[in-house]
Every structure is written in C-alpha cells, then in structure tokens.
C-alpha cells in the first residue's frame, strides 16, 4: 500500500474581483514509503498549494489525500492538525524558525504538538545536522545554512513518515544548497521517511532519481 495516495484532488481560490481560479487539479499521485520524489514546477504551477493540501494546511474542494491509510482531505481541521503534528515534517524555503527560540527549542517545537517534546531527540538531531555546539543559539546568531539545518532537524523531530520540502534551497548559496539538499535526503533516508520536494532549481532536481513534472501531475498548471 502506498504511503501517500492522491485522487481527483482539486483546489480553487476566489480572487478579490470574485473570479474563481482552479490552482490544483491532480487526478492521481502516489508516493511510497521511503521514496524520494522531486516535483519540478515553475512559479505559479501550484506546487506550494499542492504541498499544503497534502499537509492538511489547506482544505481541498474535493478529492482524496490518503496518508498512511487515512484520508486527511475528509478530516475536520483539528484532526488534520493532529495528523500533521504526528506524521509530517515540513521544510520551508524561508526556514520559518521562531526568532525568540533557541535551535534546540525550535527543533523540539516539531514534536511539541504531537507526541510531546523530547529534548534528547532534539539534541541528537542537531548533532546529526552538525550543530552540536549551536543548540543554544537563536536563529539570528546562525548562518542561513545553519538555520536551514535546524529546519531540517525540526522537520525530522516527530519521526514523520513523510517530509515535505518546499524550495528548501531557495534562500541558500550554491554550496549551502548542495549541503542542505544532501542532508535532507540523508536524514530522510536514515529515518525511513519519504521525501516530497518541490523546486524549480535544475541543480536540485538533477540530484534526484525520481523527478516528476508539476505540469504533468497538475492539470490546472497547464
């Protein structure tokens, strides 16, 4: 059974002038346990909306998003929040670390709303991403590359079955991007989590064996 199975997923938005536009229209998409897939798409192709639908951040207009046997598209918001807290990791382009929190606390936040924060695990993860001596640092005291490593540690903190990465290297220089990407892939592989990464960066996409075109998956992207 696939880890993630999407069928007839649709999402549209109403613009300020009242016009409804379909942003996501995915008839079918499948991701297996431990699989690492990159989605290539240009700006406006619905990549982020697609990830947000999978994460349950957005409510689909219709369709199914079956994650680990559970159709989260049919769940009420609070239940989707729980699924996200316990089963998903999310890496953002802008890292989205909380500025007032230390690296350790930011990492622990990834567990706090699910099974509960385990600071020992947060330490282990920070150690794994090479930030053993930076656990008490706040984001502004870290380089952008280090901040993205904290974001990766946080995404893995709740032992997710699926990690979603939205342009995770978009704000990094070439060297940091390469390192960050390698790190995301390694730690996902080590923990057995599947990885679904969206990007428009050819260098990033070139490192994936399995690259899918957003335009092929999403009929609304045509």
């Amino acid at each position, binding site marked *: 059974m696939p880890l993630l199975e999407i069928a007839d997923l649709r999402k549209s938005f109403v613009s300020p002038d009242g016009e409804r536009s379909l942003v996501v229209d995915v008839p079918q998409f499948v991701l297996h346990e431990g699989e690492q897939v990159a989605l290539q798409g240009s700006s406006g192709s619905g990549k982020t*909306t697609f990830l947000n639908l999978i*994460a349950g951040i957005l409510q689909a207009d219709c369709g199914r998003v079956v994650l680990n046997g559970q159709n989260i598209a049919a769940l009420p918001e609070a239940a989707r929040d729980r699924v996200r807290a316990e089963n998903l990791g*999310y890496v953002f382009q*802008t890292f989205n670390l909380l500025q007032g929190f230390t690296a350790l*606390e930011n990492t622990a*936040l990834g567990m*706090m709303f699910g099974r509960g924060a385990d*600071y020992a695990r947060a330490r282990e993860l920070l150690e794994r991403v090479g930030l053993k001596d930076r656990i008490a640092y706040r984001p502004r005291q870290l380089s952008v590359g280090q901040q993205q490593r904290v974001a990766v540690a946080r995404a893995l903190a*709740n032992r997710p079955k699926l990690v979603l990465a939205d342009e995770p290297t978009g704000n990094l220089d070439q060297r940091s991007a390469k390192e960050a990407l390698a790190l995301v892939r390694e730690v996902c592989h080590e923990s057995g989590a599947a990885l679904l990464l969206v990007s428009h960066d050819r260098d990033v996409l070139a490192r994936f064996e399995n690259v899918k075109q957003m335009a092929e998956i999403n009929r609304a992207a045509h």
Partner: protein
Amino acid sequence: MGVLKGVTWHSGLALLVRRSLQQHALSTCITIFSVALASGLVMAIFSVKQQTHEAFIGGPVGFDAVLGARGSQLQLVLNTIFHLETSPGNIPWAMYQQIKKDPRVRLAIPYAVGDNYLGFRIVGTTAEIFTEFEYQEGRKFKVHPGGRFFDPVRREAVIGSFVAQRTGLQEGDVFRPYHGITFNELERHDIEYLVVGVLEPTNSPSDHVLWIPLEGVFRMPGHQLKDKFVPKPGEEIPDSSKEISAVMLKLTSPELGLDLSTQINRQGTEATLAWPIDRVLLDLFDKIGWVDKVLALVAYLVVVVAAGSILASIYNTMNERRREFAILRALGAQRATVFSAIVLESGTIAALGSLAGFVVYAGILNVAAVIVRDQTGVVLNVLQSAKIELTGWLSISILLLAPLGMIAVGALAGVVPAYKAYSTDVAQNLAPMS
C-alpha cells in the same frame, strides 16, 4: 538540561508564552507595572476602607457614652474620643456632678479642651483617667518607667507616646500651651507645664493627647469661666463658675444608655448624650459613603485601563507574530492551541502584575496608615486584609479576590488578540516574504 521526554503541549504553551514575554520585554514590563498599580490600588482601597471603618467603629474606645453640650452627637464623639473637630460647647460642672451620682453610671470623667501644644490637643481631666479608665478591656494607661501620673494641683502633664515622639518632649521637660485647638504661635500661654510622665503606646487617639489636671484648664491665663470669673492664685473656684467640655461615661451596663439617652436627648434641653458611640460613628461613614464609592469606581476604572493596556500590548504585536502563529500551525498546533497561548500570555502578564501589586498594596497601605495615624491616632493593621462578602455565608479576602479578578480580567483582555491568532491564515502567512 536533562532529558525531557514526552513534554506535552502544555509545556509547549508555557515555552511560547515565556519566549513571547522575553521578546517584548519592555512592553511586558510596562503592562505588568500598570496591572500592579491597578491590583494594588484595588486591594489598598478596600483594605483602607474596611480597616478605617473597623478602627473607628469597632476599635477600642473605652467609654459607652459621652455627655456634652446640646448639639451634634457626631461632633461630640469626634471631639472627645478622636480629639478632632471643635467642641460643641460647654456644660456646667453641676451636670457632671449629677451624672456622676447616677446609679446607671459606673465611671464619669470630665474633659475640658481648648488648648494645644504644637497642634496636639491638651485635655484637662481628673486622675481617674489613669487610675480607673480602661481604654481597652483590662488595659489602663501606663507611663514609661520612671514617670508618674500628674498631681491634680500642680502644673504637670502626662503626654501620649505619639506626642512625645513628634514633639521631642520627655519626662522632666517643660512646655507652654497654646490657646485654641489649632496651633497659632502667637497664642502662647505664659505658663509652663512639667512633663511628669510619657504614656506607653495604646495605638489609639489618646497617643496624640497631652493630659493635664482639670484645674489647670480652669486656671489657664486667658480662659474665662462662667460669669467671667477669673480665679486668683490660691483662690478656690466655686463650682458654679466651672464649665467643662464633656463627661466621658462608662455605664454599669451599656444597654442603660437607652434610658439615659431618652432622658437627656428627648426630655432634656441642655445637653446631648452621644450613645451608642459606634452608631454615631456609623452615621459618619454613612454620610461619607459616597467617597468610598468614588474611590472604588476609580479603582475599577484603573483595572479597566490595565486590562486595556494588556489588550493593546499584545494586540500591537499580532501583525509581527502572524508568521509565528502560521509556523506553529504548520507544525501541528491547533487553532485552540494558539488561542490558548495568547490568553495564557495575557493571563500571565496579569498574574505577574498582580504579584507585583502586593508591593504597591503594601506601599499604599503603609503610607495611608501613617497618614491616618498622624491625623487621627487610629492605627491601621497593614497585615490585615479586607474581606469581601460574596454571598450571605461566603466572604473572601480582597488580597485573594483582587489578584484572581485581575488575572481573570487580564485573560479576558487577551481574547481579542487571541481570536486574531486563532483566525490566522496559515498558508498565506507561511509564504516567503518579499
């Protein structure tokens, strides 16, 4: 830091609140200060009000009734018990002699007022005030070791502890009284009194008094007795020329005051009997009850302002924190969780403010206690808090009710910004900022 496995979302909330308060330390401190002022003010106003009532109405007086000139009972009580206000007038000596013989009266002590020393009342009286009178059940005036009570035929004085403390007068010192009950340096009498004793503190208005023999008031230069009689040194003063300000009465049974009151106040025309003293004072507090209401209103308004400052301080941070809430939501925090975090944050500010409010309360009450003691001699108990009656059978200390109320109001003030956090659009606020 040890291993903290399974730390729940509750501790997550606590962490969110702590970090937010740290990040906005300045506005947090200012808000805590305003809450402290509000909470402290509410506690102080109710405590001062209740303690003042208790000190005046329920405090030790030592007498059951006061007999004085025809006029206001309240003025009579304030003048003789609290040594405030002017005397309503004089009564003839014969009236004192008559009431003293009344079988319903156990103790009758004459008071004659009209002079002061640096603003402190001088009361002419008999030695019974020291030998018979109990200012509190079982407690009589005592002089400091080495001192003694005055000799009724000498120019001697026994002074209250507060007078000694404020004027510096000590046993063996002499002073010259001033005419009138308010101090005027031009009105000094040309005679000297010797301090022979300093009373131990009683925490009552008596601490503010200089006691001299009654005869001394009669013979004070410039004092006119009845029929303009001016006694020469050594000359005996006829009883018919003597007048006094009041007679302090201890009855054989306090209930007998009703009989006396009917006889003197309703049937008589020459004098007034102030009885019972606490009811007379209760009338005073009834008359100035509006002051309490105004003060309470001010306190409530300050609470509203403090709640408003909590709301404003948190609300002003909401725009910059939208992204923070969106991140938390993306990590799995529920709407209710971010809502609770804001309410908890405002409640925490209110709780910290309420805690600091005890310092404000202690400060206000200490200052109020000094002012009340200086003005009236009544001592407020700073450690005793007021009780607020919630129902007929349930009352709660204001020191508990005010902080709890403030925390509830503070948490309520957080509902508006909390709703804003609750309704944060996650996807929109997670988008990269340009």
